[in-house]
């Protein structure tokens, strides 16, 4: 009996192309709809360079919606991948990209930036990024040496850093009284509306190399699931790989938080969702998370922009409101 098993490369391509199609479709949809109404045909023609739309729509498409949709896709991709890596690294299904305190660290940076009157971009973004890097260094210092690999030390240290920073954020909020309070709360909810193209390019420049590095380590992440000791006997230098994955993922996630605040739930639910669909192999899951996570946040952002009668809701609210029930339905289906 000769079994026919599709080579892993073939699976990666099939799933990537399918999800790329989904991502492209949601992005075109995202650029087509908005508060000024939807113009699907004109938008598609304008994007493809077939026929220019009228001047105002042209500006809305290229200056407002396009950067925002690209930002949403990048953020979704980076956060999903971040969740996937942390779930493998910490061998904990509850891990998400913010679990080690990255978002609360950048929260402190952003709040200090807002309180000292920095401009939203690049001022507050840089302050947020600096905040999360300080948190990461603190975490690395706390867990350096032998202790990093001990069971759950990294996770526990991260959760403690997160709790401490969270308390500090509450303290900063409690002493702020003027309208800067609104800016702080809005930042903490996660907001995609401030997107502009230079910001998107900058984020892409940070995220792209990180994702390539993580893909190269995706097979190693499979071995992580076998346990530390067996992985070592299969040629994995656990300590070095753990450090590389931790730092790479943290930089990538910090950059997204600096760009648009902490958008919740994507990093937790998308990797699990895709695992139920495409299986446990990280070589397939890494590209799947990038594309699927991107599509998910673009879709959620469309709903966040169009559902409310007036104004818009934070994208983070939609990601959780849709993601949680969807995940439970899939989980129930896969068990039966």
């Amino acid at each position: 009996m000769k079994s026919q098993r599709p080579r892993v490369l073939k699976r990666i391509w099939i799933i990537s192309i399918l999800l790329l199609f989904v991502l492209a479709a949601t992005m075109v949809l995202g650029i087509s709809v908005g508060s000024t109404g939807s113009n699907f045909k004109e938008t598609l023609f304008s994007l493809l360079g077939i026929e220019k739309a009228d001047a105002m729509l042209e500006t809305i498409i290229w200056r407002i919606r396009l950067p925002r949709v690209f930002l949403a896709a990048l953020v979704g991709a980076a956060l999903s991948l971040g969740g996937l890596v942390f779930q493998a690294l910490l061998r904990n299904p509850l891990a998400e990209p913010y679990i080690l305190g990255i978002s609360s660290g950048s929260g402190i940076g952003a709040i200090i930036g807002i309180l000292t009157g920095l401009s939203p971009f690049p001022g507050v973004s840089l302050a947020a990024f600096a905040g999360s890097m300080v948190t990461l260094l603190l975490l690395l210092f706390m867990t350096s040496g032998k202790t990093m690999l001990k069971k759950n030390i990294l996770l526990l240290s991260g959760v403690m850093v997160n709790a401490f920073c969270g308390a500090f954020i509450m303290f900063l909020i409690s002493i702020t009284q003027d309208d800067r309070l609104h800016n702080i709360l809005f930042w903490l909810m996660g907001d995609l509306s401030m997107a502009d193209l230079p910001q998107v390019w900058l984020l892409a420049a940070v995220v792209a190399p990180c994702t390539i590095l993580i893909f190269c380590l995706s097979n190693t992440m499979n071995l992580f699931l076998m346990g530390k000791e067996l992985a070592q006997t299969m040629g994995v230098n656990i300590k070095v790989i753990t450090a590389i994955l931790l730092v790479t993922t943290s930089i990538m996630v910090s950059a997204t938080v600096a760009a648009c605040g902490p958008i919740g739930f994507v990093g937790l639910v998308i990797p699990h969702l895709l695992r139920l669909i495409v299986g446990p192999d990280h070589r397939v899951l890494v590209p799947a998370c990038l594309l699927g996570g991107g599509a998910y946040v673009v879709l959620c952002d469309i709903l966040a922009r169009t559902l409310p009668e007036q104004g818009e809701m934070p994208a983070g609210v939609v990601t959780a409101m849709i993601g949680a029930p969807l995940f439970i339905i899939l989980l129930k289906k896969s068990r039966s």
Partner: protein
Amino acid sequence: MKPSIQVTSLHAAYGSLSVLQDVSFSVPKGEFFIVIGPNGSGKTTLLKILSAITPFQRGNLEISGIPMAKYSRRSLARIMALVPQTVPEDLPFTVRELILMARTPRMGLLGLEGDQDIQIAEEAMAFTGVGPLAERKMDQLSGGERQRVFIARAICQEPQIILLDEPTAALDLAHQVRIMDLMEKLRTEKGLTIVMVSHDINLAAMYGNRLMLLKKGRIVKMGLPAEVLTFETLEETYECPLLVDKSPLGNFRRVTLVPRKFINEDLQAMAVQKKKEGDA
């Protein structure tokens, strides 16, 4: 020819607690070498040192004539594979996926397997008889099936040395023999060096080329099974009543445990007699 494993004056400790003291031995290529000893004798630690999971404090360790420190994890993984005692219960992979992962130390930067890797995995599955399980999930297997899958995984790594940590400990009688026969077949057909840690003295007596008896981190005795498994040595090492006689299968030692309720003068007399027969 250089021995597969050469250990000289090895000392290991966890903090101030000494685990191995002045352990020296050598395993020639193609030998089935079994380490036995009571709980806490340092057997598992020794196996972890050999597989570069645990560091050691003093002494020398050479694998195929090259000091351990000269190996990268990847290069070591190409000549040595481990069959662990316990693995995570909730492995999400299928049998075939898990076995294919053993090719990692020979894969390129992207960690993608080629046709040759798939071929070798198929052969490893055929050799261990787990072919029919290929598409099963790891958490749907029985204990014996899991153990054979992990042996197939080790074979797929194409090592020269296989280390096993109590592979028969949780298995029923049929599976114990099956696993041991499999190791014997690996040794004779593929010429692999096999180092096994075991609690089962009777299996060790029948399958091991040489045995090493450890107690409290020191070597009590090393040599042919018949030399190591004597009544005096075993009673002194394990500190429990037992009988040693000849196996009905041939010239092997057989060790019988003696429950407390059987311990009386008659039995002691019998033990002495059996001992004489065994030594004769």
